[in-house]
């Protein structure tokens, strides 16, 4: 069954508040200083058309090596009800990333804004993170012999632009923003909708709004 791990808003906030003295004392994001960012992606499966625009936009943006897809839309086309279903996937930027301690080179870091990065200056591409990742979101780039994964388009964020997958999503199935900003579309949506993480997997920075009418077998 999908979405058997729905979080309450309270539980959600507890998981994403950065472990810093200022923030940990409060469970209410809006009281935090505005200039601190805490990135979250919220994917509305009621809007995802499976068009793969995000997948291709990610390839175009990241220049990921052949065979590496840092985000993609999984297609479930063998449902008994004949309906095709979709699940956009990417690095979950887990609160407690399993990849981080697995990396013997300490190339993986969890930033204060929630993003999990891999430092290619340290990475030797041996793939411990690939094995450790419960989301199947780390891949080995065989051209550069490094581990690769989504970094929420950190360089675009620096330039004041949303991640490539978010910009390319015409039906606005991917919302992305700073949950420390109470007016951010993501913050608003998190208040409005019931959301969850992927089936039984650890919480992080990617959440899903389940399809409202899941007819027949579902696949998230």
């Amino acid at each position, binding site marked *: 069954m999908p979405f058997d791990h729905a979080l309450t808003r309270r539980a959600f906030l507890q998981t994403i508040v950065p472990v810093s003295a200022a923030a940990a004392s409060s469970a209410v994001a809006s009281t935090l200083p505005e200039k601190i960012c805490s990135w979250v992606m919220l994917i509305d499966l009621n809007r995802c058309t499976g068009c793969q625009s995000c997948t291709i936009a990610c390839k175009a943006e990241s220049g990921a090596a052949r065979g590496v897809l840092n985000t993609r839309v999984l297609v479930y*086309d063998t449902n008994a009800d004949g309906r095709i279903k979709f699940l956009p996937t990417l690095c979950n930027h887990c609160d407690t990333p399993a990849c981080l301690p697995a990396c013997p080179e300490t190339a993986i870091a969890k930033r204060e804004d929630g993003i999990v990065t891999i430092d290619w200056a340290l990475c030797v591409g041996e793939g411990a993170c690939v094995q450790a990742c419960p989301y199947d979101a780390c891949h080995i780039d065989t051209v550069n012999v490094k581990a690769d994964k989504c970094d929420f388009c950190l360089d675009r964020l620096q330039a004041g632009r949303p991640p490539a997958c978010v910009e390319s999503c015409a039906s606005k199935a991917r919302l992305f923003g700073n949950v420390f900003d109470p007016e951010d579309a993501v913050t608003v949506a998190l208040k409005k909708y019931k959301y969850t993480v992927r089936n039984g997997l650890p919480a992080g920075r990617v959440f899903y709004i389940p399809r409202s009418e899941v007819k027949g077998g579902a696949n998230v």
Partner: protein
Amino acid sequence: MFKNVRLSHKGAMRPIRRLFCTGGLAFAASLFLPTHLRAGKISLKGRVSRQERGQTTYARSGTQSRFVYTSCLGCNARCGMRAQVQGGTLVEVSGNPYHPYNSAFNPIDYTTPSEASLPLASPVCGKAKEAPNILYNPYRLLKPLKRSGARGTGKFEPIEWAQLITEVAEGGQLFKSFGDQRYYPGLRAYMKDDLIDPAAPELGTVRNQVVFIGGRDQAGYKEFTDRFIKDAFGSINRISHTDICGLGFRMGNFALTDGKQVELKADPVNAEYILVFGANIYEALQPGINTYGATLAARVAEGKLKFTIVDPRSTNASVHAHRLLPVKPGEDGALAMCMLRRIIETKSYDVAFLRAPNASAAAALGRGSYTNATHLVICEEGHPHNGRMLRWSDLQLEKKEVTSEAAPAEDPFVVLNDEGGAEPHNIGGLQSAALDAEARLTPAGGTAKDAITVKTAFRIMKEELCAHRSEYYAQRCGVELSEIIAVADEFSAYGHKAAVCQYHGAGNYPGGAYAAYAIALLNVLVGSIDMRGGYLKGGGAAAKWNEGPYDLKKFPGMRKPSGVRISREKSVYESSAEYARKKAAGGSGYPAERPWFAFTQGGLCVESLSGIAQQYPYKCGVLFTYYFNPIYSIPGGDTFTRALADPEVLPLHISIDVGINESNLYADYIVPALTYLEGQYAFLTPHAPGMKFTAVRTPVVAPLTGHTIDGRPFSLETFLIDLAKQLALPGFGEGALPLRDGGHISLHRAEDYYIRGIANLAANVGLPEADSTELRFVEANYPVADYKHLITPQEWRQCCYLLARGGVFNRRYEDDFDSRGAHKYGNEKLLVYNERMAGAINSITGKRFKGSVCLADVTDSYGTPVAKTDTDYPLTLVTYKMNVHAQSRSGWHKWSMEVFPENYVYLHPQDARQLHIDDGERVCITSRHCTAGVTGTTRISPSVRPGCAAISFHYGHTQLGASSLAVQAAETVFLGGQRICDAIGLRGDPKLGAGILPNRLGRLDVPLGNTPLVDVLSGIPDFSSTRVAIRPLKS
């Protein structure tokens, strides 16, 4: 920095605007303090290019990046595109926030300064993102090629431009170098006004033996080729590819609007119930997936819309569909007729609308159009006008009275008033007429023996619908009757907010015009046509581009081609010498050798090729093909291989294309074409539904192809201009473009023509002149600015206003409806009965076609049902497009090919069990005309209807890089150079040949000599009735 951003509709860009858009760079930068950025261990993964790109995004022109607003051609959906160029290289593509198609019909205000628009996020789909992989594809041609061996051997050599022009124009013993002594006539041989056949003068002059078929046509370069082929050379054979694009559904709309409009769709913004017939809304369609599909998805998510899918495949949209009706392929008409019957039986149609007999009566009801439902049709065997609409003059026996008829200049139609009396349909004050009625009318001055039986168009439709029981329709279409009834009841309950979205799948088979007509009539019965929320046509162009200050249409010496097209489209067989001859010989005159298509939208590339292959009705001397790959793209297209390979059948074939494909492998010459990022200037109007705009495409980068001695790129336009100059044709070269004041200017290069088109458009709209910031922006960013000296400074400033926004998008979606919801640019009149269709004659059987809806069978041209003859092949082949692909060239979509490296044959588990086939198994798929079969991998899925095998297009290439070819000096011919070449020539990449091409299995028409199966009424190619057998490869 960007203080004055004006977003007219708050919320249009809502989810991302706050953080990323409103304040531009300065604001955004404040969110990302340097200390914060250094909080984690950041490495940008060693990708220098990516890092640079991130840092220079939206830097002003003059530094490192250029930005150009233009239009995509990843497919023909016509979305806008914002291209980012660094150091002359295209690095990124995003959307145009001014363009309704990149903003789910809700763009930023047109007056927003372009500088403020640049930081705004704007989506494009995966196909657009692949632009660099099309532009920089290693298999692109840079130089003209001439074959250096027999056709189809793949032996080519690069030649000089001058040689290309001379040989194509003048002909000669062109292939003597390898022992072919044959004389090949060039274009000049056909520059005569001799008749092709003095015994058949209707065919026209030998000029018609020059044929040009455009695969990827769009307004702009289409008119440019028209200018050459039709206006300057004088051949009638400028043929488009409408038939394989989707003629079936277009013919339904053609019958409905009497040819005035072929594309209508459900209003995606305001409809509340959409019935999707054979339209792949989440994977293809025009407007495309990020416009129409995304709008529908968002509205379903918001609870504002339900849609039901009628399709043998679930399609990706099944994820959000209200209901799925997995119809039998080719039986959409039966399902629609069952619904129509239900709506009539339950009297849930829009009576007031249907009873309005004329435009003013409909307008009084607040409607955008009226129907001929109340107009009378002559149903009198033996009457000279039997089957036609009754005219007022038919009721006047004495001719004089007709001409003296005072009121209307035209001979009006006739309706019955409430007392049963006949009245002209347009007589003043007539608000309503009898709808479901028939009568015997005696003409004035006549007696009972002159009486004419007449029925209303509505009555004829009803009789046709009632010719079969509902249960029969349900059985024919393979959908439970209860489901059809439920959908019909829902559809009529939503009334003006219910509409159909029909596309390629609805009617792409023999008889498909009638299926699509029935589907279109659903919108008429519930009254949603031409209404907000209903079934709408496109609003058309913002203004004309080919007239205005510069006349790009007419020129001295312009020809007016005439005669019969090689496809026989829009020509009447009964006017031919062949018919007269057969009749004189004592026969009925039938059958014609091949069908003629008097009642069609046209664009019949399939029948053109069948005509060329059979040299009927005459021989083609020179064939030009542009961006056209018929062997690959036409179901059963393989059959044309023989004709294309034989110089006796087709003496000269010149292809203009970006690469060597499955078809121009057989060409004598291949001229390099530009991609849409370097050329293909275009003026793009909206697809249905709604909107009124003109998007403009100009180049993003300088052409990559080689160039002439005087510096013009090798391209379609340069080729046609130089051919015209060689042949001294009018309309090209020195003084070819007339000015308003009587002067003339020259046409030596593409820009001479297109920049004046842009100037015309800007002037005709009355755009303001760009301010100095926007002027600087365009001049520093747009390659087309190099040609600003060709127009006046004032015109250029107007052009800059347009170019800085990628076109003219000065109207909003809702502007197109009046206060009562009628579409201002809608149809005027809709036909429930089409007398022109009723007047068309089947040129094989000699029987008249019906003028109303009817249940047609899928048959070959001689009336034999395919299902009955191909019983050895138990499954019906269904084909479709995928969301990351277009048609024949998208194997070059490098990233898409990573996401989906191959396609599959989808089978229902029930069929798989019967055939003992497993998921993922390698199988051989055969058909009657492809007994050798094609091989592929299975996917067992309940998403396809039992009895069907679904295979997407796009795969199974043998060319465009998939095979090695003996091209001389290949490293100088292909963009990829040494990287893709070896001592022999081009080195093929087998990955590009992955997957299955379903068109290879296409059913052919046996009695017509094994040419692809088409509909005999209008030439619709068959995509839905090929039967296939599948067996495991191991056995």
